[in-house]
Structures are given as structure tokens and as C-alpha cells.
């Protein structure tokens, strides 16, 4: 059973602005932050998963978003090379923690930006990677070489959906749900040709980060605010668990951003 990695939100807050969601004028409610994060943690545990916690660090408010720690495949961990200096200091803590827990840490070249699982999601045997806002295409290439798998690189074009995990969510049956307008035309075509069964999420639901969901077999943990998606998934036999995520949305994150799979895949190919 895959484990999950979370990071308690002890130092979480809106302390800088590195995406269109963030505004220092609109801070997070500390009590509500704890409550919402606790809600996620308990939900994941209640679904039978072992949840590991990486210790939070002062002055690294976004460490709570563990999906950006890196990408874990088998016993190998590829840490992020954060694009923004505000988050760059998280990387060594995540890497050290993973190494302590028995993972082989494989760094990408320092000049290739890569933001981990946030921009790299497996659908079947294929790794879908987003690029432009945070991750470089060059990093996709390096990841493909390390993991020896097919990487589909897709350009993200809407700054609100700056990581692929904010607009694309693969499902275990080979389908996926997504917000197509977050991708350029070529990216949309590439995704359509590799994932024939796609559920389009309407914009009014996508802006609640509905695609930022943690999928555990037939259980889908997602932010509340997407009744139509919940209905579609229900028709396909998935059980949805909408959670309040308002305080994390203020930083441009939700359920999936707060969770990293350990590992995301047992084997890459």
C-alpha cells in the first residue's frame, strides 16, 4: 500500500506572492488552517492509508504543500528545484528526510526547474508533466532519462493553474478529469490522444481546485465546490470526499498539493 506524505501547517501563512491566488492582504485564518489540514489528514487515515509527516520548518510556509517536495518512484526520490527562491530552501529538508527514510535521492541539474509531483503525474505508464510556469521542459527530459518512461510534456497557459496537478487528475481506470483550457492546444491534443476518456471540469468548478484531488483507488478526496464533478465521478463508481480547503486556496493549493505519494509509482515502466 502506497504511503502518503504530509507536512503539518504549523508555519503556514501567506507571506509572499508567487502565484495569482496569493495576496498578503488576504491572510489565512490560523485556526481554520489547522482544522482544514486536520480534516484532510484524518480523511486520508480513515481511508486506510499510512500517512507520514515531515517536520515543518519555520520561515518555509509552503512546505505544507508536500506534492512539491519531489517525485517518488519505487525507492527513488527526485527532489524539486524550485523556481522561486521563496521555496528553494524547502528542497534540502525534504531530500534529507527522504534519504533518512531509505530513499535514493537523485538530484536534477541545478539549472532545470522542477516542482515534483505538482508537475508530474502518472496516468497508467505515462508520466504527464506540465511546463512553463514552474517546471522546465528540460527537467521533463531528465526525469524521463532517470525513470526510463514516456513523458508527455504539456504547456500550461493559465497562470491560475500553474502546476499540472491543479488542472489534471488521472484516475486508476485509465481515465482522468481535467480543466482543458489550462493547457495550450498542443497539450490538449497530446493529453486527448493518450487519455481517451476525459471528464471535462467546468471553469466554475475548476477554480475551486477540483482537479487538485487525491485519488486512492475508488476514493477521491477533493476540495468542496464541484457538485457536477462529484456527480460525474459518482456515476463512474468513485466515492467523493469533498473537504473545505478555503485557507489553502489562498496560497493556490488544495488536497493534492498537500499530499505526496510515497511512491507515486512502484516502478516507472
Amino acid at each position, binding site marked *: 500500500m502506497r504511503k502518503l506524505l504530509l507536512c503539518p501547517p504549523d508555519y503556514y501563512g501567506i507571506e509572499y506572492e508567487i502565484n495569482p491566488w496569493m495576496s498578503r492582504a488576504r491572510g489565512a485564518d490560523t485556526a481554520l488552517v489547522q482544522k482544514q489540514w486536520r480534516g484532510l489528514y484524518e480523511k486520508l487515515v480513515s481511508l486506510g492509508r499510512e500517512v507520514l509527516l515531515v517536520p515543518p520548518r519555520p520561515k518555509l510556509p509552503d512546505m505544507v504543500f508536500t506534492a512539491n517536495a519531489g517525485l517518488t518512484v519505487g525507492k527513488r526520490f527526485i527532489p524539486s528545484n524550485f523556481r522561486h527562491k521563496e521555496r528553494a530552501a524547502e528542497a534540502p529538508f525534504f531530500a534529507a528526510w527522504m534519504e533518512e527514510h531509505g530513499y535514493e535521492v537523485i538530484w536534477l541539474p541545478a539549472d532545470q526547474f522542477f516542482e515534483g509531483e505538482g508537475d508530474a503525474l502518472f496516468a497508467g505508464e505515462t508520466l504527464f508533466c506540465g511546463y512553463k510556469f514552474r517546471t522546465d521542459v528540460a527537467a521533463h527530459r531528465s526525469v524521463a532519462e532517470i525513470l526510463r518512461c514516456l513523458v508527455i510534456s504539456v*504547456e500550461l497557459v493559465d497562470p491560475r493553474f500553474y502546476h499540472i496537478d491543479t488542472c489534471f487528475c488521472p484516475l486508476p481506470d485509465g481515465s482522468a478529469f481535467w480543466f482543458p483550457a489550462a493547457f495550450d492546444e498542443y497539450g490538449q491534443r497530446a493529453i486527448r490522444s493518450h487519455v481517451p476518456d476525459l471528464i471535462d471540469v467546468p471553469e466554475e468548478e475548476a477554480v475551486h481546485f477540483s482537479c487538485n484531488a487525491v485519488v486512492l483507488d475508488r476514493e477521491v478526496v477533493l476540495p468542496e465546490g464541484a457538485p457536477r464533478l462529484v456527480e460525474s465521478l459518482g456515476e463512474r463508481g468513485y466515492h467523493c470526499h469533498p473537504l473545505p480547503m478555503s485557507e489553502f486556496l489562498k496560497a493556490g493549493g488544495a488536497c493534492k498539493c498537500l499530499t505526496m505519494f510515497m511512491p507515486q509509482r512502484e516502478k516507472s515502466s
Partner: protein
Amino acid sequence: MPSETIELRGHIIDSLILPKVLDEIIAREATFKIGEIRIGERRNDQSFARIEVSSPSADELDALVLRLRQHGAEVSEKKTVQLAAAPADGVYPQGFYVTTNQQTFVRVGEAEIEVRPALMDSAIVVDRAAKTATATKFYGIKKGMEVVVGHQGIRVVPLQRSTVRTDVFEFMSSNVSVEKPKSAVIREMAREFKRAREEKGKILVVGGPAIVHTGAAEHFEKLIEWGFVQLLFAGNALAAHDIEYALFETSLGVNLEEGALTQHGTQNHMRAINAIRGAGGIRQAVANGLLKRGIMYSCVKRGVDFVLAGSIRDDGPLPDVITDAIEAQKAMRAKLDGVTIAVMMGTMLHSIAVGNLLPATVKTLCIDINPGVVTKLTDRGSFQAVGLVTDIEPFLRELTDFIAADR
């Protein structure tokens, strides 16, 4: 046009990165040439493409390349050409680069210099102080000149055929066939001639004596008369038989009206040559009233420039003929500026010789009763030549008819 070479690698086919990059190049009105492409064979294999991108301006190119870098394009390091000194006058250094007739650039340090002229079968002499690169024949080489060796730092721009309109040259492709719809092709040729003149391009005719032998001289004279010939390259024979016909109404002794050999007719071309030698040359013969008609007469009257190049079997030759082959090449090359169409009719020797001097951008049409002539022309590097297998007389008659109908 400024250019950069970019490289793409990764799963660029499945991710549609390659088509995206190519589309983006086109959308920005730049052009590309794929230098190398390797497609991964298995699912997980990465692919590779090296693409040369050219844009009308350096600024636009920079903006485009910046954008392409976002898609993972890496700019290849630009390499400068390797130079070696000519070891002696008239001798290229070991490993010299042999030019084609296509537009070529060499990178010398930071600068990219166009090689002029676009002349095949030469070496490139670089003058770093003057920032020039010159396609130079053996005889132009002086000891110590810096000559390009190897292939590094050389960029050849392939001939881009028009994509907006299909002209006769695209229609014919570069095949030689006796089974082409000749009238349609000749009608297109007539349009091509008009277009060239409207655009102030020069039309070069390379002609053999068959023009006279087949009785096509009168049609050719019309072309000259109407201003569709600016330059004539030929040998001694065309001029000699044209003048023979002008003076004696025979060509190689055959009366062209009656088609029969006249008495002592085979001597006529010798008498014609002698008459011109006596006058001091063709222009003088026209000036003193000796030569009153014919192709050469029309050329002189209409101010059509001509170069007559000699060969080993010439009778005479006429005083206007340049018998030193290298001097003849130089004289022809000196007149090629502005030529946009070359029509080669009924001469293998001169067609191939002139083909070797022409840049690939000159539209070249070869008309010969012998299909082998076009094949030989293209085999020797003038790949842009298209051929029409027909007798000269019907070709010129039809061509002048089309032009006349359009006038």
C-alpha cells in the same frame, strides 16, 4: 537572413512539441530546415531534432528563439569555419570545401558572411579584414589565401520554391520526360518570360546551331525583337551558321527554304566566317552594312549582350569568339548578374558549361531533342534545371505564338 540552429530532444513527438515548434516558426513568418531528426523507436525512447531557423530580422529571430527555448529548444553552439592557406598559386589546400550553386554562408568569428557568387565547384576564399567570402576557381587562387576546409561553420540555404503560385518549374519538377504536355508547359514558359521582364529580370539564352539548322532563327529573332532576350551565350557555330544563313541563305550548306544541299554549299560557312573576319567582327559587320539580318544582327541592333565561347572543333573561329576557355568562363560569369531565367537550347556543351556558372536561384529550362542533355545537366549539379524534350523549331514557334497572342 539571420539564423540559429536549435536542438530539441525528449518525447517531442508524443508531446507534440516538435509540431508546436515548427508551427510557431511558421506563424512568426520565419522558416526552418530540419538538419537531423532521430525518432525514438520504442515507447520510452527519446527523439531528437536539429532545426535551422531563419527569420527576416535578428530581433524577430531572438524573440522567436526565446519563445522556442520555453518549449525546450536548445541553441546549438555556433562554430566558426576552419581555414587553411593555399599552398601555391592555383592550388586549394587539402580538404577544401567544394561549393554548390546554392546560397551559402560561412561563420567567421561572430559574423556570418554570404559567399558570393553562388558558384558551384569552387573553393571559398575568406578575407577576414574585408569580411568577404568569395567562391573562387583554381585560377583565382594565390598562394597564402585563406580557404575554407571541412564542413564546420558552413550553412547552405536550400532553394525555396514559391509556395504561393505553381510555376512551370514546379509543375515540371526536375524530371525530363518526352511525355509532358508540351503546349501547356510552353504556354507557362511564355508567362514566365513575361513575369521575368515585368520584374526586370534578365533572360539568358544559351543556344546551339540547331536553332539555325532547324529553321527556328526567325522565331528567336522575334524574341530578341520583343525584348525577351537580354543575354546570349553560344559557341562559334551558332553565330557562324546564323551569319552563313544571313549571307547565303544556307545553314551548313543546306538551303533552309528548300531543304536541299546547294552546290558548293558546304563552303558557305567558311566564306561567312571569312567575311566577318574581314570586317573585324560581328558588330563591325553590322555597322558597315555587311550583316543585315539574322540572330547576331538582331542582338547587335537590340543591344543584346553576347559571349561566344570557342571549342576545339571550331572552324575559324569568328573574331568575336573567346578561345581561351578560362577567359570565356570569366566573361560569361561577369555578365550573370540579374539573370533570373536561363533557356538552354540545342547545345549540350554550352548548356553544361553555363549550368556550372549559374546560381541555383536561376530558373533553368533545357530544351533538347536528346533527353540525355537534361539528365547530364542535372547530374552535373544544376539540379534546378527542368527539361523539355522537343525539336527547337516547334518549341520556339509555339513560344513566340503564345507571347504574340498575349501582346
